[in-house]
Structure formats: structure tokens, C-alpha cells
């Protein structure tokens, strides 16, 4: 009996989820909605099995590779740039502020045609979109995070005759790390969001391409399968990042709830 209750507790938040799946399965079968537009859930699973697990994993891994290449590139550039701008040259940061704001509001997709014209068709356009959509959130949050480190801590370290490098690694970096990680998470979420669009614009593999292909071929089941895959991978990424966050920042007390549920 106790065992059942503990399982029930764990699943409590997923009951509604199961309910949605059941309704999805039953509604088309009972004729409440057209089963051409909304195929029952089981048929989507069957389509997934027909497509083959290897194919699905191939698509997912190709898409993930694109996200990570763009995202890591953005991180590698944005983090040091943010450190330098916020820490060493606040005047330059103020100087560049309107410019960065303008650049950050360029939607990443409009870079796609420009990139295609300059470099040609290929992976580069997708990487650019991903890079662009994750670069700015990371840069902004990095600057904000560094600037919001408690100045008292920095002064304390200075009064103890700590060098600049020591202050940076021992005080500023840990102090700003919660914000940094939030920025990374926002960046990754954004870039994953943009990935599907850019893959359906110009790619010959990956999840976005699969959905786009299914759309033009009229495979309704595959569209749903793709949507489920995208949502699932996005959710998994989110959970992994959340886990990393709590693992890295275990010293932080009482994480605010509003941040945690960020989708």
C-alpha cells in the first residue's frame, strides 16, 4: 500500500499528461476530430517505429550537433567578451551599448539569406542563426552578472591584497556564476527554438528538415512525430541544464521559483 502511494506521489504531476495522451488517442478514434488532421497517438508511435530508432537518433544527433556547435561558439566568444566589457572596460561597454542593443534585435533568420549569398548554401547558415540567437542573451547576462557582483566582496578581497586574477577567479566568477548559468540556459533555449526554423529553411537533414519534408509530402503523422521529438529533446535539454545548474550552484540558498520553471 505504501508503495502505491509513493508511486502515486511521484506521478502526481504527470497524470494530466497521461490524460492528454488518452484523449489524443480516443478523440480521433471516436470521430470527435478528423483522424486525418489529428491521427491517434498510437499511429504516431507506429510511424516512429516504422521510421526506425536509428533514423530518429540520427536526426536528433544531427540537430543537436548543430545546436551545440553554434552554442559553444557563441559561449566561447560571448563569455570572455562579457568579462572584458563589464570588468575591464565599462566605458567601452557604455559606448557599445546602443550598438549591441541594435544588433541583438536583428532577428537571426534574416542573417540566413545574407549568409547564403556571401558563403553559399550549407551548414554555415544554420550555425550563424544558432550562434546569433544564443550570443546576445549570453553576452547581456554575462555583463549584468559581472556588474551585479557585490562590490563589498571585491573591496574585501582587494583589502586583503589579492591580485586582479585572484579577484576574478575567486570572487567575481563565483559571484556571477548564477547569472552566467541563467544566461547560458536562455541562450541554449533560444538557439534550440530557432534551430527548427533554420533547418526547415535550408538543410537536408535533422529534425527541422524532417518536419519540413513531412509538411511538403503531407505525412501528417510524421509532422506530429517531429513535433514530439523536438519537444522531447527540448525538454530533456532543459532538465539537463537545470540539473547542471543545481549541481554547480549547490551552495546557493533558496533558488527563486520564478526562475526555475523557465520553459
Amino acid at each position: 500500500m505504501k508503495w502505491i502511494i509513493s508511486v502515486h506521489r511521484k506521478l502526481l504531476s504527470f497524470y494530466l499528461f497521461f490524460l492528454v495522451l488518452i484523449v489524443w488517442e480516443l478523440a480521433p478514434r471516436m470521430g470527435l476530430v478528423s483522424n486525418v488532421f489529428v491521427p491517434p497517438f498510437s499511429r504516431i508511435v507506429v510511424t516512429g517505429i516504422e521510421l526506425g530508432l536509428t533514423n530518429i537518433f540520427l536526426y536528433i544527433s544531427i540537430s543537436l550537433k548543430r545546436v551545440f556547435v553554434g552554442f559553444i561558439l557563441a559561449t566561447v566568444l560571448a563569455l570572455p567578451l562579457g568579462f572584458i566589457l563589464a570588468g575591464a572596460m565599462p566605458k567601452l561597454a557604455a559606448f557599445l551599448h546602443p550598438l549591441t542593443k541594435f544588433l541583438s534585435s536583428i532577428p537571426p533568420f534574416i542573417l540566413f539569406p545574407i549568409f547564403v549569398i556571401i558563403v553559399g548554401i550549407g551548414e554555415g547558415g544554420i550555425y550563424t542563426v544558432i550562434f546569433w540567437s544564443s550570443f546576445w542573451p549570453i553576452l547581456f547576462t554575462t555583463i549584468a552578472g559581472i556588474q551585479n557582483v557585490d562590490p563589498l566582496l571585491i573591496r574585501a578581497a582587494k583589502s586583503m591584497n589579492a591580485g586582479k586574477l585572484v579577484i576574478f577567479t575567486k570572487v567575481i566568477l563565483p559571484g556571477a556564476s548564477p547569472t552566467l548559468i541563467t544566461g547560458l540556459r536562455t541562450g541554449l533555449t533560444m538557439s534550440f527554438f530557432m534551430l527548427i526554423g533554420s533547418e526547415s529553411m535550408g538543410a537536408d537533414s535533422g529534425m527541422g528538415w524532417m518536419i519540413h519534408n513531412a509538411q511538403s509530402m503531407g505525412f501528417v503523422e510524421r509532422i506530429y512525430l517531429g513535433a514530439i521529438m523536438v519537444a522531447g529533446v527540448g525538454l530533456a535539454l532543459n532538465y539537463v541544464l537545470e540539473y547542471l545548474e543545481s549541481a554547480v550552484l549547490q551552495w546557493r540558498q533558496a533558488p527563486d521559483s520564478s526562475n526555475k520553471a523557465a520553459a
Partner: protein
Amino acid sequence: MATRNIPVLLLVCLRLSGIALLCILWEVLPRSGLVNPTFFPPLSAVLQEIAALLRDQHLLGHTIATLWRVVAGIVLAALLAVPAGAILGYWLPGLAAGLNPLFRILAQVNPFSLMTVFLLFFGIGEKAKLIIAAWVAFWPLLHHVIGGVQNIDADLLKAARSMGTSPSRLFLQIILPGAAPAILLGVRTSIILLLAILVAGEMLGGLAGLGWLLHWSSNYYSSPYATTPIFAVGLCISLIGVALSAVLRKLERDLFFWKPLESAWSAAPAPRLQRSRPNRIFAVTVLSAMLLLLVAGGASTNRLSKTNGSFSGEGDVPPPSTSGHSSHNEHSGHNMSHEHSLPAAGQSGHSGHTVPSASPVQSGHP
């Protein structure tokens, strides 16, 4: 914040000089040949192209179409998300916690992946696009509203309840004002995302809007520099993004003058200016502009997508055979000379499509 030490006037100059420097660089680098002007046209050429697009390609109409979709989508999303968020956050917090996994999955459902499904349900009109826009804006907004409602000072709620306030008054007078800053923050967060997604959506399938114009302009080659139209439309889109977020930021400052400012991404606290009195004029102006846009924008968008819905490229092929015109076509020599004198597509280097109603080809011949 380290920038506090710099005098305000100097700071303003510094900031403006950043933009000025960019403009100068943009103009000088391609002209001097350091950057290939074919791929990166100088600023003046881009501005000229914007003027040309305004003249020939209904740039203003496309801008209004995009803005209309953004505003309508966000209004729709807010109308759904605010009551839903208030109910979930205040009256049914258990359900909110229970629904959280489902919400997270739904928020991850990419609008692009379901575009066709939306099209199947709602048809290929404005409705599908609005639903997509509302879908994109809804989830971040809902999340912010729930957070905002749950962070309202509990004492206020208790006080109101102890005085026997009815639920509707509680919602209107306590929950809504209390959560308003969070709601506006949510609007600002989602509007950035919404604009990006909307432009992409218009690029993939649409008949009006800046995304459509961008997609169209990337398909033709303008005469001196190849990429001018793309840069021109891109500049317009970015400026809209900057303007939208500036307007929302100003609204935030005016309406919630009592709140310390925080922003979606750059969480740097803004310098405290003298905001002692609430200034409602700007808010009212924005609201009325929004309403005007909602009413007038819909009509103009519909008209524009109807004109663009006709065969694209109509402008540069010989005019469609109207009854009076077909007889004209037989005298080919005469017709050729006539075509040359037309001030239509060819002259400005646009080999693309000009909107039929605007082209003198049809209207010139009765």
C-alpha cells in the same frame, strides 16, 4: 554599476557616438573597398533602397502587417494568459503545479513544427498566423503571470480577503495591479521572441509582412549591389525590434515608477532618473496607437496579402491580356516601344514583382 561615475551628458554623447561610428564605418568600408560592396553595401545605398521599397513595394504596408500580427498575437495571448495565469496562480496553485510538466512540454512545442497542423485547422489566412503568434507569446507570458501572481505580497491578499472582497474585485484590484509589472516583463520577453519567429514564419509562408518582403528581396538581384534589399528590409525589422522594446521599456518606467527596473536580458539596474510622478500620457498614446493599428492594420494586411496572392512576378511579364489589350499586343513593335516608356519595374533595377494595382501597365490601357 561602474558607468555611474560618468556624467550623464557625456554618457549620452558616448552612446550616440557609437551609433554614429557604426554608420560612418558602414558607409566608408564598402566604398573604400575594404569590404566587398557586393555583399555588404554602403549605408547610403541601403537607405536609398529603403526609399525605393517604400515607393514601389509597399514597405509601409508590410511593416504594418508585421506590426499588426505582433500586436494582435500578443493581445490575444495576453487576453488568454492573464486570466488563466491569475486563476492558476492564485485560486488553483495545486493545479498549476500539476500542470507544470504539461506546460513545459507544450512550451517546447516549436511553432514551426506545427505550422502545417495549424494551417490544416485554421486555413491559410491571417487566422493561422495569429494563432501561431499567440502560441509563441502565450507560454512565456503565462509563466510570467503565474510567477507574478504568486509573488504578490500575501498581506495584501489577506487584507483584501478579510474585508470580504468578491473574487472579481480581488482579481481586478489586487491581483491584476500586483502582477502587472510581471505581465509587462513577460510581454517584453515574448515580444522579442515573437518578432523573430514571426519574421521566420513570414519567410516560410506568407503573403505579406516584412518576412515575406525579405524572402522576396533575397530572390532578386538589385542593380549596383546584390544584397541591398536584404539589408534594407533587415534594417527595418531590426529598427522595429528596437522601437518595440524601447516603447515597452518606457511604458514600464512610466507605469511602474515605484518599481526598481529590471529587464529581460540585461539585468543591469537602470540609473535612477527623476521619475517622481506617474506619466500617463505616453501610456495612453501607446494604447490608442495599438487600437488604431489593430483596427486599421487588419484591413490593410488583408488587402496586401490579396494583392500579393496573385501570381508573383506579374509586374515584369507582358501585361495580362485584358480584352482591350489583346488587340494591342498584335502590333508588337508598337508595344515594345511602349513597354520601354513604362516607369515600372525595370528602371529601378527591380526585376521582381510589382504589385499589380500599382503598376501602370494595367491602368494605362483601358
